[in-house]
């Protein structure tokens, strides 16, 4: 039995499920494999039985005699009790794993992840902020989730974990990645326009690389100003709505080679894209709307969320997009 | 298809066997409807109790703005109206429709008194800047010498206005319904064999009373 589920597990993981990035993923898949097998057997009995009876007892003439069977208590008890036992088994099995998922290890590396329409931002203990979530392999990691606006859900298919991020409250989840590589993080709770674009990368690296990455990220202050702007552009998830390497519009206008151009706005007239216009657009997106884009603009205001130096770095970066 | 015929002087729809069959069916329908009323108000009660235990101090602050004397008078008014409502049915049962009409009229009057007192309570709060939810106005409250102490006080008054407001709407609907059966009663449509509408309206009115019996300690007393 154990060997068989193991085989099933392997077969399923390779074809129907995302890669198994954690031990918990394996135990979830074991349970899932068991459920699929049991489901398959029950469907085979029900559907197979149905087709068999339908063929065997097909009407031959209008006056067919049928059996008069009102009930059979033994049979009915049988197909009440057997499913019940199976249900109780899978319930208990599921609970054991669920309990494991919900019990936060005490020694975990803690990362604060905040959801915001429509991006995730990770913040590490030393103050590093990042769009990519980088974690060391074989180490307990605890994600403390928060949301700035509406419900989001932090979902890593390869780890078989998911947890809603709720504004006004912290929720958490943990994992211990056993596989190096990059994994998708989806938002699984509907959150508006670009819900389906709220995807980020979870990079599992060696402890060594992790330490290196963390140090280099924390040295961001020493980078050239436009480079810093590029970082902020990523961490603030500007890229989910604005293209920077081609002129095609996404949700918002592309910023590629935008600086210095004249744009016609719905409020009337044209506007020259200069430092002050970009500044205004970031802090008060509803002030002017370029022709052809929705009004009111779906862009959130960054008033009070960016320091002057961050703002300057962003503008410098946009200037450089040539 | 529903047609009706007269049985013992009572109009009975064709799908009912007799007067009692029709009466008991109607009554069951009325009770089922009352269940939905209980469950609808119940949702608010559940929310109130949960948030009350999450934010006891904030709820205490909110309750301190409520004058239990007003609530007390209103409780008496509503209980009295329930009593007269019961009399309205009683006098019809014993064949004294004139008295029944008077009882119903007093019931409507009590409903009106209740609403007037509610009006004074509301306007007093509006005057102090106490509005539901995010409309609550801390500056106005401070001007009136009652600075707001808990950040989400608006939620208490959100509950207060939703619960007493929904209850108030029911009082108004009840008054309308009682007036309707009162007019029918004056026209002589009811008699000891047939008074189901009065009874139905009566049960509705008692539900309104019942809800207030719990709202009073919930909002005014258990601060």
């Amino acid at each position, binding site marked *: 039995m154990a060997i068989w589920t193991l085989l099933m597990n392997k077969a399923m993981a390779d074809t129907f499920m995302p890669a198994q990035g954690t031990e918990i993923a394996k135990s979830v898949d074991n349970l899932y494999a068991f459920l699929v097998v049991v489901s398959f057997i029950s469907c085979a009995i029900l559907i197979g039985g149905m087709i068999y009876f339908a063929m065997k007892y097909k009407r031959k003439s209008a006056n067919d005699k049928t059996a008069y069977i009102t009930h059979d208590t033994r049979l009915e008890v049988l197909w009440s009790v057997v499913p019940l036992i199976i249900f109780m088994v899978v319930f208990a099995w599921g609970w054991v794993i669920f*309990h494991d998922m*919900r*019990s*936060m290890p005490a020694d975990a590396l803690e990362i604060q992840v905040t959801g915001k329409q429509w991006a995730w931002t990770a913040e590490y203990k030393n103050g590093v902020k990042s769009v990519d979530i980088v974690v060391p392999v074989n180490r307990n990691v605890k994600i403390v989730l928060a949301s700035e606006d509406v419900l989001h859900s932090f979902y890593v298919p390869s780890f078989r974990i998911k947890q809603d991020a709720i504004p006004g409250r*912290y929720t*958490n989840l943990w994992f211990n990645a056993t596989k190096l590589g990059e994994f998708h993080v989806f938002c699984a709770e509907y959150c508006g326009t670009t819900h389906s674009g709220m995807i980020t990368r979870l990079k599992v690296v060696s402890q060594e690389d992790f330490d290196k990455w963390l140090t280099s990220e924390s040295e961001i202050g020493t980078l050239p100003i436009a480079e810093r702007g590029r970082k902020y552009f990523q961490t603030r998830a500007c890229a989910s709505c604005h293209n920077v390497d081609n002129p095609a519009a996404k949700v918002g206008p592309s910023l590629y080679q935008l600086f210095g151009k004249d744009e016609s706005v719905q409020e009337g007239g044209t506007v020259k894209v200069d430092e002050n216009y970009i500044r205004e657009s970031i802090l008060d997106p509803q002030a002017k709307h370029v022709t052809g884009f929705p009004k009111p603009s779906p862009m959130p205001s960054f008033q009070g969320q960016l320091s002057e130096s961050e703002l300057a770095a962003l503008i410098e970066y946009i200037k450089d997009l040539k | 298809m529903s047609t009706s015929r007269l049985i013992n002087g009572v109009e009975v729809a064709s799908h009912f*066997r*007799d*007067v*009692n*069959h029709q*009466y*008991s069916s109607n*009554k*069951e329908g009325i*009770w*089922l409807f*009352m*269940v*939905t*009323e*209980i*469950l609808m108000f*119940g*949702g608010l*009660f*559940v929310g109130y*109790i*949960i948030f009350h*235990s*999450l934010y006891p101090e904030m709820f205490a602050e909110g309750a301190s703005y409520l004058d*239990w004397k007003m609530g*007390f008078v209103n*409780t*008496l008014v509503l*209980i*009295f109206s*329930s*009593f007269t*409502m*019961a*009399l309205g049915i*009683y006098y019809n*049962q*014993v064949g004294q429709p004139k008295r029944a009409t008077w009882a119903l009229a007093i019931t409507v009057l009590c409903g009106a008194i209740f609403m007037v007192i509610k009006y004074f309570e509301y306007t007093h709060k509006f005057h102090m800047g106490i509005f539901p939810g995010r409309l609550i106005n801390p500056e106005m409250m401070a001007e009136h010498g009652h600075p707001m102490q808990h950040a989400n006080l608006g939620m208490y008054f959100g509950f207060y206005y939703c619960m007493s407001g929904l209850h108030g709407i029911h009082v108004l609907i009840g008054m309308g319904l009682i007036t309707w059966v009162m007019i029918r009663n004056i026209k002589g449509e009811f008699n000891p064999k047939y008074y189901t509408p009065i*009874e139905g309206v*009566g*049960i509705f009115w*008692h*539900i309104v*009373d*019942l809800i207030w*019996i*719990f709202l*009073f*300690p919930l909002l005014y*007393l*258990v601060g």
Partner: protein
Amino acid sequence: MANNQSHHNDHGAHAEPHVTPLRTYLNVGAALFALTFLTIIAHVFKAHYLPLAPFIAFGIAAIKAFLVMAWFMHLKYDEPSNRVIFALGFFGLAVLFAFCVIDIFTRVAQGTVL
């Protein structure tokens, strides 16, 4: 539901309306008034037994509610099926309340209560 099933096809045996004497209504009305005063008295002196205050206030309210339901709403003399139906409403409410409370008051920021 079991209670309802016994009710098929009765030719209104239970449905004969019951006439409550006037005296009873007066008594119930008086009791309701008295209990309302009692609520207020309890409220004024609640400083002396603070932790119990809500229980007393709601205990009295429950008695009042019972009086209204039993006599004013005639449930005491109504068909048992109607009593079951009305009780179902309160039962549904209790379910909603119980599970919301089970969730909200066993949430913990760290670890688990189980």
